């Protein structure tokens, strides 16, 4: 039998992928093991540790306790089920809010930085990287001062809503500089000629943007969307500072469980259930967006 012929490039790529895969796998073993223990523990009667594997039994009790707002088997509910559902909803609001604001602004600003000539463009682009290096915590006092100051004229029944908007915008502001930079890179790769070609074909500026440019930077948009969603989903400090104490997200809820000595009291598998739930949307969202990330090829345009 003839061996199946393969392109040189395909062989290379396969080997490359295999090697890369192995390296990544080895590097991620500690993380994978940790996540596995976390997820598995949420379905067992005790936290999984090495010594007691034989005594574990499968149960859904932790999940039930979690949704009933109970932290231990014996105790009365600390939170109601509605609280828990609201925290989950809050988490989604903040995550999607940050994602939408970041993706929209970074895409538009990235286009401007890539395509338009304006004064101080070079400086601005360099500044983006510097801005990204600023840790969000270091800005919190100024951001808080601005919050108090801007909240003044708003009637108090709107404060909760305003707090959400403020958290979303403030958290997005931390993400935007880096994401502008990423988007600029994607726009830079789209040749001017493709845009011009569409203009000559009779497309309006808006149409060119919507039908030609955006599809070509879809992988960039997907990447930025994932990054900002994850940032919003995991936002801790900004949520703690700005949302009223009654409005938690999963991140602040779990942090609350683990803080202030309550760790000795709570039933750990319940926390594991909370942690698993906290992970889940990120995974789902990632697998949903992932296929866009590597999709578009820019060929059809010579060097």
């Amino acid at each position, binding site marked *: 039998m003839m061996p199946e012929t393969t392109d040189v490039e395909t062989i290379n790529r396969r080997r490359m992928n295999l090697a890369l895969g192995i390296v990544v796998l080895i590097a991620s073993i500690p993380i994978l093991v940790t996540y596995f223990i976390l997820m598995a523990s949420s379905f067992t009667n005790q936290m999984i540790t090495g010594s007691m594997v034989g005594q574990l039994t499968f149960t859904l009790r932790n999940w039930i306790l979690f949704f009933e707002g109970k932290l231990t088997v014996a105790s009365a509910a600390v939170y109601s089920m509605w609280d828990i559902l609201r925290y989950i909803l809050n988490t989604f609001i903040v995550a999607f809010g940050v994602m939408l604001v970041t993706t929209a602004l970074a895409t538009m600003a990235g286009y401007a930085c890539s395509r338009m000539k304006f004064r101080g463009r070079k400086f601005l682009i360099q500044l983006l990287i510097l801005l990204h290096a600023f840790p969000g915590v270091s800005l919190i006092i100024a951001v808080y001062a601005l919050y108090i100051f801007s909240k003044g004229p708003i009637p108090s029944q709107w404060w909760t809503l305003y707090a959400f908007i403020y958290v979303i915008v403030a958290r997005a502001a931390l993400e935007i500089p880096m994401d502008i930079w990423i988007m600029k890179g994607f726009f830079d790769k789209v*040749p001017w*000629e*493709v845009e*011009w*070609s*569409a*203009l*000559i*074909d*009779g*497309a309006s500026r808006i*149409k060119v943007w919507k039908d*030609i440019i955006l*599809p*070509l930077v879809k992988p960039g948009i997907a990447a930025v969307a994932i990054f900002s969603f994850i940032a919003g989903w995991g936002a801790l400090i900004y949520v703690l500072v700005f949302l009223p104490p009654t409005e938690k997200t999963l991140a602040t809820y779990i942090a609350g469980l683990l803080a202030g000595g309550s760790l000795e009291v709570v039933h750990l598998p319940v926390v594991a259930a909370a942690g698993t739930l906290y992970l889940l949307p990120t995974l789902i969202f990632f697998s949903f967006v992932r296929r866009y990330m590597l999709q*578009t*090829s*820019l*060929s*059809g*345009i*010579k*060097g």
Partner: protein
Amino acid sequence: MVSIRLDKVTKRFGKVVAVNNVDLEIEDGKLYVLLGPSGGGKTTTLYLIAGIYKPTSGRIYFNEKDVTDLTPAERNVGLVFQNYALYPHMKVYDNIAFPLRLRKEPKSKIDSKVHEVAKFLRIENLLDRYPHQLSGGQQQRVALARALVKEPSVLLLDEPLSNLDALLRVYIRAELKRMQQDLGITSVYVTHDQSEALAIADKIVVINKGVIQQEGTPEQIYENPRNVFVATFIGNPPMNIVKGTVLEDGTIETTGSRLTPPPAVLEKIKRLKLKNILMAFRPENAVVSEHPIEGRFSPMGDLFEVEPLGRDAVVTVTVGEFVIKVVMPTREAMQLRIGSKVYVNIDPSTIKYFDPNTELNLEYIEA
């Protein structure tokens, strides 16, 4: 039915003057070829006509209408880009249909037009593919199809055949010319391939450093170049240049050989008070030999190289600072010894004379 006129058009990019004060009239229904070396300003000129670039100064007219401030879409031009610029995320069919869809033409009409143009360019079997699944030549034809399908009033082509193999290039070139004539589309065709230019052009515009060097029919450009640049750019190999000294008696001397120029030339030499003169001749209008031939103008030089190309050979001789290439029968060329002293025997009636200061052909200088 569109004629194009560029009126003192200049385009600057910062300090670079890409197109410099160009006056050009492109007649209705004709195929004009912009020919010039890389960086000469061909693409820039094309983009100015298309409306992609706005001139730094000067005006552009379609017929008598000033289109300088119109958008590309309003000018109804078809443009094939040097790098094709296909839409990578659309199939070939959608690429070609894109301009028609923007015009909101009915589906059935779009479909028949796309198939018609695809058939003409032999890409019917590719309609279902994405651009990255095509070869360079196929991509180029898709770009051509997209430009043609709109039935534009002006067709602009930026080196549209550069990526095709020799055979296909000649086929498409001929088809393109025929189609252009049938449809009567005013066309501007950019190339740096002079044989392509000579083959299809109604008029050739030679452009270098953003300045038009000469405009004329292929015959005019080939037979009577306006300046030294055009002379040494057109032809394969191009014209040769030798320098001569003008003597008291009006004859011209180079390395001991003498030539009496035609009276009209002599008169201009006198009027311009030229002490030196440049002479140009085509490689096929001279013969290299060991002894000067009677009746010919025969500068002496060193034989540098003989390249046999089948029946003919290219013989390279250095005469002073000038390198001269002569095309002559291989049999005769092989008799010559590399490094020996030889004579380049030029047919005097074919020589063109240029002012060494302005590098202009004396025939183009007003008497």
